[in-house]
């Protein structure tokens, strides 16, 4: 639809430029009854004007198309943010109602497990089986609760308070959360933080959740023995965080699907597939962008977060998610 629109616009523009250019020449020719040399010159000018008007209209149409495509892309991003936010408010609404019964299951089974410890193994034939069943129930309840808690990450916080955030400090702190996991798997964190990065007004907690998700994914991708590098940098408008790992990279056909909610390649019960979907919706709601690519030498993946440098708090353009039950 847009394409056609632009084609017509192009034709119109060409005609307009052409008429504007050729008309005066034609008039001049009529008024001054020129010599053959002048006619040749005028013809040359006419050809020049033809070319110029064609080129000019092409230029304008290209400009329009580009801004239009940007607009479409922005629309799509907004639609994505909206979608995620509505998942969030739905989740916020039901999470309380699900987590309470889950708590009751955990409490009951915990109590049962405790009391089984008092039993005499000689008297209770299947004691070990009972105990194992208790452990199993606990495990699966925890699995379910991981999903409900993850889903809440989508909930748009209406009181999303923006504070002055030092990205380098945020990265360092986030690293400390994952230090144990890295050490345990012999993975080295390499931090390349640009000194003197300016503070930016943003939602620190949510940004940290993003960095945490990406670093956690990077550790999972590397699995054992390798490196995860986090670098920060800036240009005049944005701060950029790159999380680069030495894992296997992302298969080309998965480069778009990884962003879908519930897409995961991890073992059942280990990944919810919500990390990247949540992260992207958070970064977008903070006015930034989150992208993924593979390293050019094929030795791992790069996830890039870009957020604007805000000197004052910005009010979010869209406010959805009625945030039930938050205090």
């Amino acid at each position, binding site marked *: 639809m847009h394409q056609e629109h632009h084609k017509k616009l192009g034709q119109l523009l060409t005609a307009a430029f052409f008429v504007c250019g050729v008309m005066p020449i034609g008039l001049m020719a009529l008024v001054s009854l020129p010599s053959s040399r002048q006619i040749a010159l005028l013809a040359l000018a006419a050809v020049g004007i033809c070319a110029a008007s064609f080129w000019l209209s092409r230029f304008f149409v290209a400009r329009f198309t580009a801004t239009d495509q940007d607009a479409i892309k922005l629309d799509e991003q907004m639609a994505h943010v909206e979608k995620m936010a509505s998942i969030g408010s739905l989740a*916020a609404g039901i*999470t*309380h*109602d699900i*987590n*309470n019964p*889950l*708590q*009751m*299951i*955990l*409490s*009951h089974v*915990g*109590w049962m497990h*405790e009391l089984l410890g008092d039993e005499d193994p000689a008297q209770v034939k299947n004691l070990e089986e009972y105990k194992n069943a208790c452990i199993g129930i*606990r495990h699966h*309840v*925890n699995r379910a*609760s991981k999903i*409900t*808690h993850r889903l*809440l990450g989508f*909930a748009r*916080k209406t*009181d999303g308070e923006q504070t002055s955030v030092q990205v380098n400090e945020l990265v360092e702190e986030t690293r400390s959360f994952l230090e144990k996991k890295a050490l345990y798997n012999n993975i080295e964190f390499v931090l390349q933080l640009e000194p003197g990065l300016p503070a930016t007004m943003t939602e620190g*907690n949510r940004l940290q959740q993003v960095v945490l998700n990406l670093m956690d994914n990077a550790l999972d991708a590397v699995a054992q023995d390798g490196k995860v590098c986090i670098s920060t940098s800036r240009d005049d408008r944005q701060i950029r965080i790159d999380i680069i790992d030495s894992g296997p990279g992302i298969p080309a056909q998965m480069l778009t699907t990884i962003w879908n909610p519930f897409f995961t390649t991890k073992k059942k019960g280990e990944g919810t597939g919500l990390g990247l979907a949540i992260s992207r919706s958070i970064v977008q709601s903070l006015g930034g962008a989150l992208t993924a690519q593979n390293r050019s030498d094929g030795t791992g993946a790069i996830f890039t977060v870009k957020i604007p440098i805000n000197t004052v708090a910005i009010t979010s353009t869209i406010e959805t998610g009625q945030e039930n*039950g*938050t*205090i």
Partner: protein
Amino acid sequence: MARYSVLIVDDEEDFREITTKQLIRRDVNCESAPDGDSALKMINVQHYDVVLLDVKMPGKDGIETLREIKRIAPMTEVIMLTGHATVESGINGIKYGAFDYLMKPMDMEPLMEKLDAAYERKRIQQEKIESAQSKNNLARPTKG
């Protein structure tokens, strides 16, 4: 003698009942209340070291109850419980003086760790105050 005392405030009867049994087994004195108002009545007449307080209850909500508790028994430590894992509800509670928060569902071990830590802080705080008071008392006769 029990190690310390806990008051559980939660509208889920099963939760109150089982958690009370579990705490008593771990040598912690434990009572419970189904809502904020009855909890406040109990705190008015009796001392508790730690209160385990559900954020979302019918009637007086968790934060309101927390502020009241901190007003009438400022030394009592409060741990917020939420079935609703928004970070804010926890942080909000901490702003108003809660010791920490826990998300439901949780196992007994993390709950026990938090309760012990909360009581530990309360004990140290109380010791400080007591030693300051006794110094004060010692200082007074020489002054007067």
